[in-house]
């Protein structure tokens, strides 16, 4: 990664990085070193995966071998989990990087005949830790003990002893716990763990699932207390630390061409500010995608990496359509500068979209991002949710100094494009497109409704989509455009 990612929280304690994208930023560097962290949540929320990633990354990237005491899963399942992270459990064990001890507790099959303690568990743990000189330990899920052993007084005393033992041995540990009805964990493990508690949540709303992570407490560290959406995919967990980024970005004064010289003319002859956000709204067929494609092509021609999120059409469709208006984008795709990413808006929830967008941006480090169109996202959620998601996305893009372009489909007769108005306040530049038919001749009209920080032209122009790309025609005197525009920041039309 060429550019360092912004740090949100400054580290103040020794930390053990988890290697999980986003989580280390939210926690200011990772989990408390030499301490016990509780990760809790309901079944299937990703606790075990988080714990395993912590171990695997620790062993592979940070030179800290790890021991997992697994109370629940079988070796098969666990190996599949580790394999999904791209690692082979057996190979890691052979290289003395990771050791797993499967503890099976036969439910209610153990008769209790007097006093006992859990020294057997301690011995197994100590034996494994010693065998590979482990620095990290995962106990997943230690609550299984409660289902096998009935004397909870002994159990609680032993758990307390176990957590002290881990700290005495300077082991950084992750303990997982099942969510309880009124408590964080079913058996109140949070009472024993003072240093760091992370809660995971998996909720389904309108048949769309969203995963969220929250740092409930982290002693000695200021941490983001918000809920962060996270994603589980082939590469494991990634957390999106967004809400805390707001307004920390600095504005750039560099300019980038819109890709159309005559449109650059309208914006002080220089085009957009680098790192600014641009909204292009218009009715169907007015050239929104063409305008974005034109912008991307210009960026690629400068040698910049562009990421194009297509929520409506497949990449091949876009490429074909653009070719028909004289925009051949294929060479840039082949050159590896232009990346298309097509997604069905309804396939996953908004947060997951956001997480996916973040992930790709982190991977490709583009300087231009196009989202075409944002309208389709509205179909999966309310306008308010879309606005809050876009706000976080725009903030993120600004921090990363990425110039972003969002297209927005509007409908003729809609009292100036309600969705557009809802999100336009987030945007630095808003270009409105519309078609009209004065004197029976169809034409497209373009108007720069606002562009913060510059003296832009307020004159509507004709947008000509020809075989050789886009250009602007003459200033329109008989336009239909401006009179209907009444969004924030709107101005009186030019005389």
């Amino acid at each position, binding site marked *: 990664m060429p550019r360092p990612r912004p740090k949100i929280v400054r580290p103040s304690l020794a930390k053990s990085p988890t290697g999980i994208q986003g989580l280390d930023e939210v926690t200011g560097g990772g989990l408390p070193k030499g301490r016990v962290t509780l990760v809790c949540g309901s079944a299937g929320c990703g606790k075990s995966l988080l714990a395993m990633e912590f171990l695997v990354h620790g062993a592979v990237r940070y030179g800290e071998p790890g021991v997992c005491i697994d109370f629940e899963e079988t070796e098969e399942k666990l190996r599949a989990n580790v394999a999904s992270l791209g690692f082979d459990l057996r190979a890691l064990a052979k290289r003395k990087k990771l050791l797993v*001890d499967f*503890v*099976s*507790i*036969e439910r209610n*099959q*153990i*008769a*209790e*005949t*007097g*006093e*006992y*303690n*859990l*020294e*057997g*568990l301690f*011995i*197994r743990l*100590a*034996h494994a830790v010693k065998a590979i000189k482990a620095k990290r330990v995962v106990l997943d899920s230690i609550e299984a*003990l409660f289902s*096998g*052993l009935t004397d909870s007084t002994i159990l609680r005393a032993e758990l307390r002893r176990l957590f002290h033992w881990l700290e005495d041995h300077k082991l950084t540990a992750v303990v997982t716990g099942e969510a309880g009805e009124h408590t964080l964990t079913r058996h109140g493990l949070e009472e024993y763990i003072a240093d760091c508690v992370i809660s995971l949540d998996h909720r389904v709303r309108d048949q769309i699932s969203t995963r969220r992570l929250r740092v409930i407490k982290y002693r000695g560290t200021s941490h983001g207390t918000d809920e962060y959406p996270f994603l589980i995919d082939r590469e494991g967990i990634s957390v999106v630390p967004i809400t805390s980024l707001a307004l920390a970005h600095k504005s750039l004064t560099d300019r980038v061409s819109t890709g159309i010289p005559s449109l650059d003319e309208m914006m002080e002859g220089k085009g957009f500010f680098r790192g600014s956000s641009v909204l292009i709204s218009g009715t169907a067929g007015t050239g929104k995608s063409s305008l974005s494609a034109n912008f991307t092509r210009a960026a690629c021609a400068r040698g910049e990496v562009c990421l194009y999120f297509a929520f409506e059409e497949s990449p091949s469709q876009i490429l074909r359509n653009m070719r028909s208006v004289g925009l051949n984008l294929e060479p840039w795709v082949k050159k590896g500068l232009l990346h298309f990413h097509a997604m069905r808006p309804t396939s996953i929830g908004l947060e997951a979209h956001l997480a996916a967008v973040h992930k790709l941006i982190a991977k490709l480090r583009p300087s231009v991002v196009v989202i075409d169109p944002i309208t389709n996202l509205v179909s999966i959620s309310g306008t308010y949710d879309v606005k809050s998601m876009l706000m976080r996305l725009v903030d993120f893009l600004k921090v990363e100094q990425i110039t972003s372009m969002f297209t927005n489909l509007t409908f003729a007769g809609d009292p100036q494009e309600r969705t557009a108005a809802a999100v336009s306040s987030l945007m630095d530049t808003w270009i409105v497109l519309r078609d009209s038919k004065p004197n029976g001749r169809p034409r497209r009209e373009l108007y720069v409704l606002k562009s913060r920080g510059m003296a832009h032209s307020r004159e509507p122009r004709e947008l000509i989509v020809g075989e050789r790309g886009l250009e602007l025609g003459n200033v329109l005197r008989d336009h239909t455009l401006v009179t209907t525009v009444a969004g924030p920041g709107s101005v009186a039309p030019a005389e």
Partner: protein
Amino acid sequence: MKKSSARKRPPAKSSRRAFYRLRLYIAGQTPNSIAAIANLKRICEDKLRGKYNIEVVDLLKKPQLAKGDQIIAIPTLVRRLPPPVKKIIGNLSKTESVIVGLDLQPVR
């Protein structure tokens, strides 16, 4: 067929034939471990005289053995024979629970 003929025999006779192979896991000479050994010997002498064998495993000396029998609690007593394998935990001070847990039939 052998099984069914064995079943027909009176229970006292079959218990006389069973040999108990017991393994007691301890961790050092703690009060619970010492109590468990003493309790186990007493119960066995009482109920299984001549028909048992006790092996005491100290996990402090042989930690690698904890995994095989899935030992978590100390002391743990494992009945390795006769099958099925049974496991009971604690210092064996509750004699009745031990007898039930090990499925010891009284010798007649």
